[in-house]
């Protein structure tokens, strides 16, 4: 039996987008990749309080960069955990 279920589960996280002034409740799915997580967090911030940039986004969990193709479940991101999303500097 796999420890990582393929069934999507809703995972509420405490998310901060770099340059924003407040952390937010964002609900992601256990099957979301980090690219998906970045987009879901950015949807609440970019163009609203942080100016859009032509740059890739990265997701950091426990101060570590998580590869963009890794899913929430694979990264071990549990409900209520803090996640940082930010643009990647050139």
């Amino acid at each position, binding site marked *: 039996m796999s420890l990582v279920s393929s069934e999507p589960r809703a995972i509420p996280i405490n998310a*901060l987008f770099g340059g924003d002034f*407040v952390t937010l409740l964002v609900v992601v799915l256990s099957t979301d990749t980090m690219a998906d997580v970045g987009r879901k967090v950015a949807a609440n911030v970019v163009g609203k309080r942080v100016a859009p940039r032509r740059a890739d986004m990265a997701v950091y969990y426990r101060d570590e960069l998580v590869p963009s193709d890794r899913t929430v479940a694979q990264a071990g991101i549990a409900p209520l955990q803090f996640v940082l999303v930010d643009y990647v500097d050139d």
Partner: protein
Amino acid sequence: MGLMKREEWQGLAGDVEWTLRYVDDEAVFPEWQCGTGKIPREAWAGWHEAYKMTYAEYVATQSEKEASAYSVKAAIQRSTIADSLDEGWKSSAKLHYGATALAEYAAALAELRMARFGLSPRWRNMAVLGCLDEIRHTQMALYFAHEFVAKDAQFDWAQRAYHTNDWAIVAARGLFDGLMFSSNVVDLALGLPLTFESGFTNLQFVALSADALAAGDVNFANLISSIQTDEARHAQQGGPTLELLVKHDPIRAQWVVDKSFWLSARLFAILSGPSMDYYTPLAHRRHSYKEFMQEWIMTQYMRMLKEYGLKKPWYWDEFIEGLDVWHHGLHLGVWFWRPTVWWKPQAGVSRAERIWLQSKYPAWEELYGPIWDVITDNLRRGKEEDTLPATLPWLCNLCQLPICTMSKSANGKWSVKDFSLDHNDYTYHFCSRVCRQIWWEDRDSMHLETVVERLLAGEIQPADLGGALAWMGITPDVAGDDAYGYRWAKSGGGAAAAPGRGVR
């Protein structure tokens, strides 16, 4: 028969105690309420109030104050002054009424707890007068606000606010419950009269009164000045109590005072900070919130600590840094989540206002300028929907306020930091190291589920922003909006305050 002079009898009357014969002392004065701890019972005979007053004197003085306050109100009511008040300033009054009117009533109950369980008869007498004060304050705030209800439903929140679960009220209720009801009366005396009233109500009642007068709101200035004269008297219950605790248990005294100061400072950052630096019209601002805090709070507080032999709080550097950022982040949060509050926040970021903010807070443009630039730009493009929230901010498990405190890292970069704590297989989040530490030490009496936690637990249905608004008691007729209808953004405000910065 002539009346005896007060000096001839008050000393004796102040020491009158019951001699209990039918019940145990512990049954009448249980430790969990009285909280004497290491203070020996006999030491309470040394509790002496600085400000002596008899009931007859109290009634005479209060009667004069009432006559004065209500006559000014009656005169102003016949004028058109209220109609010409600035919409931003009116929000200061709405915020004040909602956050304080029924908190004053809660304080009446807190005074009654001290009047019942204080271990000095002098203290108990003083607390009775304090209770009468707080009832007066409740009545005045409700009455003064009621005048405007027919014209503006948001003023009805003077009465309604504490009967709702609005997030700002949950934060205020968390603080007041912690200070007034979940503690014994010794800790209560240090938290409420000593710290909150002596330390901070000066800020809200004296400094805000000056702003009110400048903004032309004579009635509001009249109200809060009258209230403050009472606060200055009954707040003195804290001093003699602290003196005893410092003598017999200095570690506990330091902890309770430090904790109460931090929690009060957090609440005043959202209660007074935006009012002084954003809602008060620029032309009428005399000092910044930070300057008021430095003049009215820090100087006096440091003097008090020294006077009683206490040390500077362990978090002092964080508190000082917070004066530059706390209320700016909270204001931005209140403005962005404006449909969730019962007042109309004035953005306060027109070109001239940003120049003023930058002059008072040298890091303001660096920290908040780019965010307001994006908001201003969206409003200019007619994209109001992008200036409104679609989710909730995460809330601190102690102060219940959004996690929005910027702090400077070792590399000189400012950013918001989340301070988490894993306990019993659950992750708690805090706005600061200090909130986290206080929660950890006093979690049995200070724990309260945040609005976000209640949403995630399924208490709020539907579990979205609309459901949260309904759950918080916010109806369309009171939901907050920009005080000026965004004219500050459309008429060349924002963005240009900092050299080299322009709207894209």
